[in-house]
């Protein structure tokens, strides 16, 4: 990977990988999507369902970003600039989850 990163750095001319790599990732994405569809098809419930959904989602997202968007062949400076900021969204999610929970309990207490 590091040699590829060095070769591909900056010029944009030499992002050349065998077509087979893309075909393999494509097939893998198909398989992962089928699995996530099957999660619903077999009516899995509770933590098993949520864990599977999130795992398959992250696997698919990782493949798309790393291979299709060439991020794993970019320099670390760009990788960090792209991947670090979205982590802030997790803070937002955590805050809103607390807030939403509070709203839910308030509604149960006063609006039923």
């Amino acid at each position, binding site marked *: 990977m590091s040699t590829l990163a060095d070769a591909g750095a900056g010029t944009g001319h030499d992002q050349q990988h065998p077509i087979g790599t893309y075909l393999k990732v494509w097939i893998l*994405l*198909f398989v992962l999507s089928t699995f996530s569809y099957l999660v619903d098809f077999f009516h899995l419930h509770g933590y098993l369902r949520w864990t599977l*959904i999130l795992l398959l989602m992250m696997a698919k997202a990782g493949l798309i970003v790393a291979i*299709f968007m060439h991020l794993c062949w970019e320099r670390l400076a760009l990788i960090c600039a792209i991947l670090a900021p979205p982590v802030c969204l997790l803070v*937002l999610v955590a805050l809103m989850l607390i807030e939403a929970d509070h709203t839910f309990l308030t509604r149960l207490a006063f609006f039923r």
Partner: protein
Amino acid sequence: MSSDHTSVDESQEGWRGLARDWSGDRVAFRVPWGKAMMWIFLLSDTFIFGSFLTGYMTVRVSTTAAWPNPSEVFSLVVNGTQLPLLLIAIMTFILISSSGSMAMAVNYGYRHDGKRCAALMVLTALLGATFVGMQAIEWTKLIHEGVRPWTNPFGAAQFGSCFFMITGFHGLHVSAGVVYLLTVARKVRRGDYEKSGNYGIVEIAGLYWHFVDLVWVFIFALFYLW
């Protein structure tokens, strides 16, 4: 830019100075500027979709009414059997296929095979247009069933606004992407990039398209499957 940072000459005052300071003449990302800018745009788009999905989570957690079961709402009846999420699953596969063909278009671009590159980009755009078409069918079906942004017959009223906002904004991105891809494909076929010897534009268009697919992965998991 002068190497001596302590001395301030006339040209470094006022607006001119501000422009010089901010441009800085330093390179942080060693990629073509267009690619860096596309990544930054996609990052901002990530925050838009992230906020939409967080908003959806907030209303779904806080509502006391039962959330409609997407598995039933989006099911199709084929030959008398009810198949959950069938149309959505097909849409997912179509979008993934378009991402695959786009990745190959970028690859052929860097191999200076303009013909195959343009053909694959047109194929990608066609798959994208198919996706939008199926989304239109989905919207029509739900609107006929009485789903509105403020109400729906299945449960919590917030379902409609989340559905129309999130999938609508994503569909808008796909539609814009189709136009974008066709524009670039036309330039590829015309030989614009063969002259300059640089197919970087194709990769930048590809970044946008893969991002659209990426967002769908999250929408599919968090809205349709959850």
